[in-house]
């Protein structure tokens, strides 16, 4: 076969422009110079430093899609998409991506979309400035995929609510300054009686009961929270009372697309790492990349990457143009999360024994990727959404 060499460098195609590529370059430089050299220490310490939020805020990353009047950068969803993809592509570990991403991608967007001007000032502005860390609390010990079955209750009292219950698996949960929290405001179960309250660290009865240990995402703090008669004032109700399910659903689309883009970034990283290693590592007198078995692994990794990227970008184009993209986002989430695990696994395989060693980072990427088919709605849930969408 003749040799056709392809650098893969392409001019940006919609919805991306030169500006997005410049932002990508900024994110990449930041990750490569300030995160990658430090992150192994953070992984071992089971937490990246608080100051990373300050630094990200200083560089504008925490407010990319928010208006300048709130201290944001005045960009849009596509800028946030670049941020999510490039963090992973440039090699930031899943824990850093999760901690910063939970803040920018899942916890603050509902405040922007559903919050009052006063809530924007109290919560969004300091979150964009990195002064207050945000978390989103939906999952409970007894309710994950089955969101409608949450049991944390909020009972009407004078001037607000009294909240009792618990949340688990909450990203940034240990150090969050405020929690955008799903609660049941009507005793009868189901979708109808869910509301969102913003709980704040320091409110009496708000307690971090546990910092959880995990397979991956080591530098991200995942917390379990307990609420005992927490008094939450009236002005901390986010959106309309009893209409919280709408808020959950609105945000899921965006969260899942960001996860898809993060997986695309991680696959891109795995591919580049694996190609470099396959060219350099020698066995039986030649570079391992010249064995067809390895070359074909690389080809399959590249195919999964291209497919995942195409699906994610197509969904992004739809969402960005204000169209419904439920099927596209769901399919992109489903495909990319599994593909990223497989790609990371192949990267480990190509690295042989070195792949199993911490030093080479690919084992971490595999561990980090394994969250993908679980978090933000499991693979099975994605398939339910897709299948039911056909009226089945």
């Amino acid at each position, binding site marked *: 076969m003749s040799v056709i060499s392809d*650098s893969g*460098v392409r*001019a940006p195609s919609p919805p991306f422009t*030169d*500006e997005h590529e*410049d*932002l990508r370059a*900024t994110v990449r*430089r*930041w990750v490569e110079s300030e995160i990658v050299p430090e992150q192994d220490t953070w992984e071992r310490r089971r937490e990246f430093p608080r100051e990373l939020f300050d630094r990200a805020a200083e*560089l*504008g990353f925490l407010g*990319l899609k928010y208006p*300048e009047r709130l201290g944001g*950068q*005045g*960009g849009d969803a596509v*800028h946030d998409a670049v941020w999510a993809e490039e963090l992973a592509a440039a090699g930031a570990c899943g824990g850093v991506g999760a901690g910063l991403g939970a803040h920018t991608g899942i916890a603050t967007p509902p405040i922007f979309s559903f919050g009052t001007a006063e809530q924007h000032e109290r919560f969004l502005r300091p979150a964009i400035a990195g002064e207050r860390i945000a978390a989103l609390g939906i999952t409970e010990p007894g309710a994950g995929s089955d969101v409608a079955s949450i049991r944390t209750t909020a009972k009407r009292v004078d001037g607000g609510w009294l909240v009792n219950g618990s949340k688990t698996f909450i990203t940034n949960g240990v150090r969050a300054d405020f929690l955008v929290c799903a609660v049941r405001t009507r005793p009868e179960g189901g979708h109808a009686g869910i509301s969102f309250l913003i709980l704040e660290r320091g409110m009496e009865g708000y307690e971090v009961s546990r910092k959880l240990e995990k397979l991956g995402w080591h530098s991200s703090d995942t917390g379990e929270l307990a609420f005992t008669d927490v008094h939450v004032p009236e002005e901390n109700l986010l959106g309309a009372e009893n209409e919280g399910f709408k808020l959950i659903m609105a945000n899921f689309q965006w969260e899942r697309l960001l996860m898809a883009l993060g997986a695309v970034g991680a696959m891109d990283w795995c591919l580049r790492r694996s190609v470099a290693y396959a060219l350099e590592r020698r066995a039986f007198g030649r570079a391992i990349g010249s064995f067809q078995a390895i070359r074909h692994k690389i080809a399959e990794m590249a195919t999964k990457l291209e497919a995942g990227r195409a699906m994610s970008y197509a969904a992004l184009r739809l969402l960005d143009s204000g169209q419904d993209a439920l099927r596209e986002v769901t399919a992109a989430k489903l495909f990319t999360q599994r593909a990223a695990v497989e790609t990371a696994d192949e990267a480990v395989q190509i690295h042989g024994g070195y792949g199993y060693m911490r030093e080479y980072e690919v084992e971490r990427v595999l561990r980090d990727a394994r969250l993908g088919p679980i978090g933000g709605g499991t693979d099975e849930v994605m398939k339910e959404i897709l299948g039911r969408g056909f009226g089945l």
Partner: protein
Amino acid sequence: MKICCLVKEVPDAAVQKRIDPETKRLDRSGENTLNQFDTHGIEAAMQIREGGVVDVEEIVAVTMGPGSAQRALHKAVALGADRSVHLSDDVLAGSDVCATGYALAKVLEGESPDLVLLGQQSDDGECYTIGAVVADHLRMPSLTQVIKMDVADGKLTCERQAEYGYDTVEVRLPAVISVGDAINEPRYPSLKAIMGAKKKPLDTKAAGEVGIESGKVGEAGSRTQVLAINPPPEKEPGEIIEDEDTNETVEKIVAWLEERKLI
């Protein structure tokens, strides 16, 4: 004080560079970017402005290049320049270092800057000379490879990197300074700055508009002529000593070193 920063569009580091055998010029198709060294020049200008010792009214980015070079100007503005000037004209194609320096000097004459900053080298041409050529035309003092710069009432105190250490040199303004990459760590352009860059003024000038004599630029006006381009001679392959019996291997290495009087 007014500072002009010379910036150049160069092929992206990831792009394999290629010389067009026909024109004997660099093939500039493909992804281009702002010359990395020039970002240090802009950062130096920003630090003078933010240092507060002198009042910097304006930082102007100046480039000479084809239409695509506007990208480099946008990047320069995203890093802090207030506006930019794009010298672009077909007559400039094929200019060598002297012609490029002359043309840039003509643009600068029109701007009357107090300080001209450049990167010490371009990523592609790597001549390290534009600064000196520009300074000669402007009749200004020039320093190269500057890695520290302090400004005070009408003069600069610079440290320049030399083979044996550092020279500390004082120059009177106006001056032309090319900076090394050790001078600073360029800032990260924020999204706001990136998006704002296209809104800042950008003047495109033809050669005639800045008084460039067409006979002094382009291929015809260049005093160098590229006759041929050859790849560097291939290095002789090293000698590989296979390690079968380690004692023997060590003997062979020692013999090899002794033969060359290295031990």
